């Protein structure tokens, strides 16, 4: 539940989602659900020449199970807060 809440707070931000098939998609985070499925708007694939497969797609739904990373800029992340929250979650859960 922790990361679900965390992603809910990131809604509206521009993020890049890297998938397990090496595809990286950049877009505005529209919404997230309990499975961490992600919906992005205004999407564009990071390496468009290598991956033209999604040239005509502007909004997409990404299944949570295929996300490898969601890289975030360090300035925008409160590491201490996350660290505490995960520690609490680990203890409680």
């Amino acid at each position, binding site marked *: 539940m922790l990361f679900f809440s965390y992603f809910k707070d990131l809604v509206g931000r521009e993020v890049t989602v890297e998938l397990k098939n090496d595809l990286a998609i950049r877009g505005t985070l529209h*919404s997230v*659900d309990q499975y961490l499925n992600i919906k992005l708007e205004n999407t564009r694939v990071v390496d468009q020449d290598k991956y033209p497969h*999604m040239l*005509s797609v502007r909004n997409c739904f*990404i*299944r949570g199970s295929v996300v490898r990373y969601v890289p975030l800029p360090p300035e925008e992340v409160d590491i201490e807060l996350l660290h505490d929250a995960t520690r609490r979650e680990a203890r409680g859960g």
Partner: protein
Amino acid sequence: MSTGPGLESLVDQTISVITNDGRNIVVFLKGFDQATNIILDESHERVYSTKEGVQQLVLGLYIIRGDNISVVGELDEELDSALDLSNLRAHPLKPVIH
């Protein structure tokens, strides 16, 4: 709150599905469920290769099990018609490795 971003907004629209084995299927989304199993009508697969232009294989009515789906994208018809598929060369997408 728990259903969050469903695929509801994409039903009865043309979408591009990327499957776990790297296939790209352009379809008409007819239905879906919580496990992301989807029902697709008038589907055709786009096969990309570096040697020849994009091939389109007609598939028809399909159900794809949610486990095998990576991305469901809303296809923008205008952008898609601007694409010159016969001149598009690309490596096929890689399969998903968990």
